[in-house]
C-alpha cells in the first residue's frame, strides 16, 4: 500500500524534522493546527460578538446620542487605519506565499512590514485616544460632551447615554488594539525563526496560523470602522 498514511509517515518522518510523531503526514499536521486556530477564532467571534450585541442594543435604545458620539470621531484617522490594516493583511498573505515558495528573505521582509503597519495602526489609535482625552470624551467624572442630537437642534445630548457610546468605543477598540499587540508579539517570535530559515515549502504552519489570527483581527476592524465611525455620518 504505497499511498497509505503509515507508508507516507515512515517516509516523511525521516525527511522532515518538523513532522511530529503522532501525525501521519505533513498535510495532516498542518490541517490539525489550522483547524485548531479556526476553533479558537470561533470563540473569538463569540467574544467580540457579545460586544457587538451590546452595541446594537444600546444604539437601538439611544439612537440620537450614539449618532452624536459617532460624529465626534475622526473619520480620516479611522479610514487611514483601515487602509493600514488592509495593507498589513496583504503583507501577511504575501509572507505565507513566500514561505510556501521557499523565499526566505521575502518572508522576513513581509513579516517586518506587517509589524511596521501594525505599529502605525497603534500609533494612529494612540493619537485618536489622546484627542478623546483632551476633549473630555472619556467616560468618568470629567466627561463633558455638549451639543445636541444630529438633526434635532432642540434635543440636548444625554450625558449618560453618550458615555455608554464612548465606553463601548473604548472597550471595543481597546480590546481590538490588545489583539493587535498580541499579534505583534506572535510575529516577533515568528520573524526571529524566519531569520533563522526555519520556514519553507514543507513547514510554514506558524506563519499561516499567526496569519489567520492577524486576518481575523483585521476583519473585526472592518466591522468596527463603519459601526463606530460611519453609520451616523450623513446627518
Amino acid at each position, binding site marked *: 500500500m504505497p499511498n497509505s498514511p503509515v507508508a507516507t509517515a515512515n517516509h516523511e518522518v525521516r525527511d522532515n524534522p518538523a513532522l511530529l510523531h503522532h501525525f501521519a*503526514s*505533513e498535510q495532516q499536521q498542518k490541517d490539525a493546527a489550522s483547524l485548531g486556530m479556526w476553533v479558537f477564532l470561533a470563540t473569538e467571534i463569540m467574544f467580540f460578538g457579545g460586544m457587538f450585541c451590546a452595541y*446594537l442594543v444600546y444604539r437601538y435604545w439611544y439612537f440620537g446620542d450614539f449618532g452624536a458620539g459617532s460624529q465626534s470621531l475622526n473619520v480620516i484617522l479611522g479610514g487611514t487605519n483601515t487602509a493600514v490594516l488592509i*495593507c498589513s493583511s496583504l503583507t501577511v*498573505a504575501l509572507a505565507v506565499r513566500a514561505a510556501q515558495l521557499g523565499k526566505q528573505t521575502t518572508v522576513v521582509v513581509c513579516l517586518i512590514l506587517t509589524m511596521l503597519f501594525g505599529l502605525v495602526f497603534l500609533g494612529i489609535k494612540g493619537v485618536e485616544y489622546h484627542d478623546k482625552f483632551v476633549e473630555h470624551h472619556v467616560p468618568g467624572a470629567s466627561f463633558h460632551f455638549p451639543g445636541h442630537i444630529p438633526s434635532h437642534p432642540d434635543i440636548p445630548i444625554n450625558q449618560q447615554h453618550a458615555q455608554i457610546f464612548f465606553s463601548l468605543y473604548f472597550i471595543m477598540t481597546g480590546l481590538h488594539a490588545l489583539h493587535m499587540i498580541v499579534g505583534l508579539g506572535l510575529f516577533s517570535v515568528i520573524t526571529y525563526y524566519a531569520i533563522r530559515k526555519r520556514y519553507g515549502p514543507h513547514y510554514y504552519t506558524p506563519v499561516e496560523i499567526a496569519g489567520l489570527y492577524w486576518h481575523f483581527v483585521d476583519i473585526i476592524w472592518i466591522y468596527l470602522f*463603519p459601526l463606530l465611525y460611519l453609520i451616523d455620518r450623513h446627518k
Partner: protein
Amino acid sequence: MSEHVSSLKLYIGIWLALLAGTLLTVIAAGIDLGPFNAVVALTIATIKATLVVLFFMHVKYAHEKLTKVVIISALFWLAILLALSMADYTTRLWS
C-alpha cells in the same frame, strides 16, 4: 505537501478591492440614504470580510473540510446571539 499557492496577481487584486471597498463605504456614509446607510455600510463590510476569509485566509482552498463547518457554526451561533437579543430588546415597548 501539495498546498494551493495563490498567484501574486490575485493577492494584489484582493488588496485593491479591499481598499476600494473602504473608500466606497466612506463615500456612501456621506450620502443620506435614510435607514439604508447602515445596510449599505454593513453589506460592504461583509463583502470585505468574505474576501479576506476566502482568499487571504485560504478558506476557498482549504484542504480540511471541517474548517468550513467550524466557520459556518461560529456564524450561526453569532446569528442566534444577535437575532434573539434584538428580538427581545426591539419588542419590549410593544405592549
